[in-house]
Structures are given as C-alpha cells and as structure tokens.
C-alpha cells in the first residue's frame, strides 16, 4: 500500500480515516481530497450547508459509495477490501425520521441486524428490552408500528436500531433534523450522555451549529466538497476563518434561529 508515512502512526488508533479521498460522479466533484480521521470514543461533527459533501462523506464510510481517488479506511482496512455486508453490520446508521421499515413493528425494526446475524431468539428479546430502556422508550411500544409513533419516538427507535448489534462505529445523517425544537434538544442531550457511556467512534452530520457545539469533540466544516477547517469544538467559534465567522454570525444574529 502507498500510505504516506505521516499517516501510518494514526492507523492503529483511527476507527475511520479518510486519506486524500475524492468522489466524482458524472464529471462533478462531490468530494475533493478529504483528509480526516476519527478515533474510537471520539465524536466528530461534520458541519456544512446542503450539497457541501457531508452525506457523500458518510456514504464513503459504509461503502454505499467507493472513493474515486484516495482511500477510506475503517479499522485500518480500506473499504474497497471489506466485504460490504460485514462492514455495514459493524456501522450503526441513523437517518432523519428514523428510516424505519413501515411494515415492521418497533421490536422487529430494532432487532433487524441481530436477526439477520442469527442471534438466538432469547438474546434478541433481551437486547430489544435493553435498548428500549437505553433510548428512553416504554416497553409497551415494542409491538407498535412506526406510523403509530411520534416523530421523537421514531427517532429514538432509529437510534436503538443502529445500536442493536453494538457496532463500534455510529454514523448519523441529520438524525434529529425532523424533530420539533424541544424534542430535538432532549434527544441531543440524551445522545451526548449516551455517547459518554458508549465511547463509540461517531460521525454526526448536521447543518446546525448549536447542535454541533453541543455534541462534538471536533467540528469539521465543509463547503463545496472540501474540508475547510477541522478543529476541537472548544476552539471552533474562535476561528478567524471567514466561513466559520459567517456560520457563527448566522447563528448568533437571531435569538432562536431554528
């Protein structure tokens, strides 16, 4: 492998690593020369506008896309070398509004990966009960269908489903984007507490600066497929980069900019 020497030291400790990764589709560059890594236990928030390449970045991690140039490594191994099914079952994935299967009950939604991994039935049932408690849902909801839940409950089920097989990596794409401000704030706080216990490698995509500041260890700002800055969350707001300034000002010019 032609890994630049500067990266070799990080490979062991990085759960996810982008090594000069680019992605092009139909002649358009959606992601340009991304260098970024996330360690186990760390929460990285990808911040940026729509079309800035955040979702493309996530899809490169679970091999829904393969890089056109450069490498994306998960646990030190290039995604192209992974069996995509094995890779994805080790990565929890949460999307806006849960992305739940409408024809499955809450229980079957949560048990999706354990079931296809052929866990014993008793283990599956115990795990579902445990997860419902973890995400703060009543056990009685297990037999409901997604359309019978509120938006916040669906989102909690989405988080529980992603955690079901205890994957070391969690990726969330605008996970709380469809929620009302109060539920959203609750979910953010609970997720932060959850992550402090779980210590997974988390990549969280959002366009909401306050959400980023609340959840992140590090914030990576993206614009037009490029990484603009990658800073510890505490330093982000102090950055003098004009794009960071624009972001900070957009969020401070209104008392409640949701």
């Amino acid at each position: 492998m032609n890994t630049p020497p500067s990266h070799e030291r990080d490979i062991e400790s990085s759960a996810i690593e982008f090594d000069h990764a680019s992605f092009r589709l139909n002649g358009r560059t959606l992601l340009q020369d991304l260098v970024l890594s996330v360690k186990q236990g760390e929460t990285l928030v990808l911040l940026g506008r729509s079309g800035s390449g955040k979702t493309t970045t996530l899809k490169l991690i679970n091999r829904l896309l393969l890089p056109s140039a450069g490498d994306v490594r998960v646990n030190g191994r290039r995604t192209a070398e992974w069996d995509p099914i094995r890779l994805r079952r080790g990565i929890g994935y949460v999307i806006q509004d849960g992305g739940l299967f409408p024809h499955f009950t809450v229980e079957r939604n949560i048990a999706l990966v354990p079931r296809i991994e052929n866990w014993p039935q008793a283990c599956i049932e115990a795990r579902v009960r445990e997860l419902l408690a973890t995400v703060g849902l009543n056990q009685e909801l297990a037999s409901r269908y997604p359309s019978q839940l509120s938006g916040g409950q669906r989102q909690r089920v989405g988080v529980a489903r992603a955690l079901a097989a205890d994957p070391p990596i969690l990726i969330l794409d605008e996970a709380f984007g469809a929620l009302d401000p109060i539920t959203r704030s609750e979910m953010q706080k609970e997720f932060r507490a959850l992550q402090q216990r779980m210590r997974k490698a988390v990549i969280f995509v959002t366009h909401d600066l306050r959400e980023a500041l609340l959840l992140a260890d590090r914030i990576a700002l993206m614009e037009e497929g490029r990484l603009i800055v990658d800073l510890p969350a505490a330093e982000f707001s102090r950055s003098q980069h004009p794009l960071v300034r624009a972001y900070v000002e957009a969020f401070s010019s209104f008392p409640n900019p949701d």
Partner: protein
Amino acid sequence: MNFLQFMMANRQQVLDLTLEHMTLAGVATFLAALVGIPLGILITRVPQLSKPVLGGANIIQTIPSLALFGFLLPAPWIGERGSRLAILALALYALLPLIRNTYAGIRSVDPAVVEAGRAMGLTDRQLLFQVELPLASGVIVAGLRIAAVLSIGLATIAAAIGAGGLGEFIFRGLAMVNNQVILAGAVPAALLALFADFVLGRLERRLGSLRSKS
C-alpha cells in the same frame, strides 16, 4: 322461457362451463404471475431491460385476441388442444399488468427505507424479500387483479377455438339469435369477474396498508 328458467333447466351445463371458464382464466393468470412477477423484479435490477420488456408486453397487448389465437394455432403441442392455446394466449395478455405493477410497486418503495436497509447490511436478497416485495405487494396484487379480470373477460372468446368456457353459450346464442342463451354465458362470466375483482381488491387494500401500518 325466460333467462332464469333457461339457467335452471341447463344448470349442469352452466356449472360445467363456469368451472371450465375459471380453470382457463385461473391457470392463465397463475402462469402470467409466475413469469410476470420475476420479470418485473428483474427489470428493477437491470434497468436497461425495462424498456424492451415493457415494450414487448405492450405490443402483445395490442394484438387482437382472435388474431393471436390464429397465430398460435400452428404451434406444436400448444395448438393441438383449444384449451392449451387459450391458456397461453390469455397468459400473454395478462403479462403486461403483472410486469408493470411489479416494476412500479418496487420502484415506488421509499428510497430512504431501501437505503437504510442497505446501510444496515441487508444483502440484496434480504432487501428484496424483507423490504421491497412486502412494501410493493399491494401494487403487485393490484396488477394480479387487473390480470385476473382481464383473463375472465377474454376467456369468453376462447370458445371460438373450441376451448370451452362460458363463451360457448355466447357464441351459441349469437348463432341462434337467442338472448337467453347469450345471457346464460355473459351473466356468469360477469359475476366471476366481479367476484375476482372483489376478493383481490380486499387483499390489495390489506397489503397496501403495510406501507403505513396502523
């Protein structure tokens, strides 16, 4: 003799022809589903095939039914018996709604749900059988319903090539200029079609509700 008296006097024959009619239409619809549903799935996986397959099924549909019977007559084995020929012709007509609805049903499954499934590590086969087909089943059964009603109606013409069915009464009545005899074929055929429509319609609504189960 009025219509009801005619039906009562000939009830055994009415019953036999109705059963024959159901067999023709039923076997044809079943065969069409056996071929049409997998073809519909195939063209969601190989999009380049969707135009030729749907186009081909469309062209078959435009061939006048009597002409299609005529074209198939010289075929070996098939042409030997009127019923074989009729079943093949009816199945060919029933193909289009089944292919089209299977294709449309799978394509209309919420892409976010499919992508979530893929991202969770479902294999292509698991995605098809656990997510796409269950969520498309309402639309697929709607296609089955169209195919069944179409086959029951068209099967009346099968009598023209000696395949039997309720068309026997209709053709006989036409030759005799006797409306009672025509009705003895037309009314049970219409009732059969309504019955199939009703039963499959209920199934369709039940499966359709999987998309937003409550």
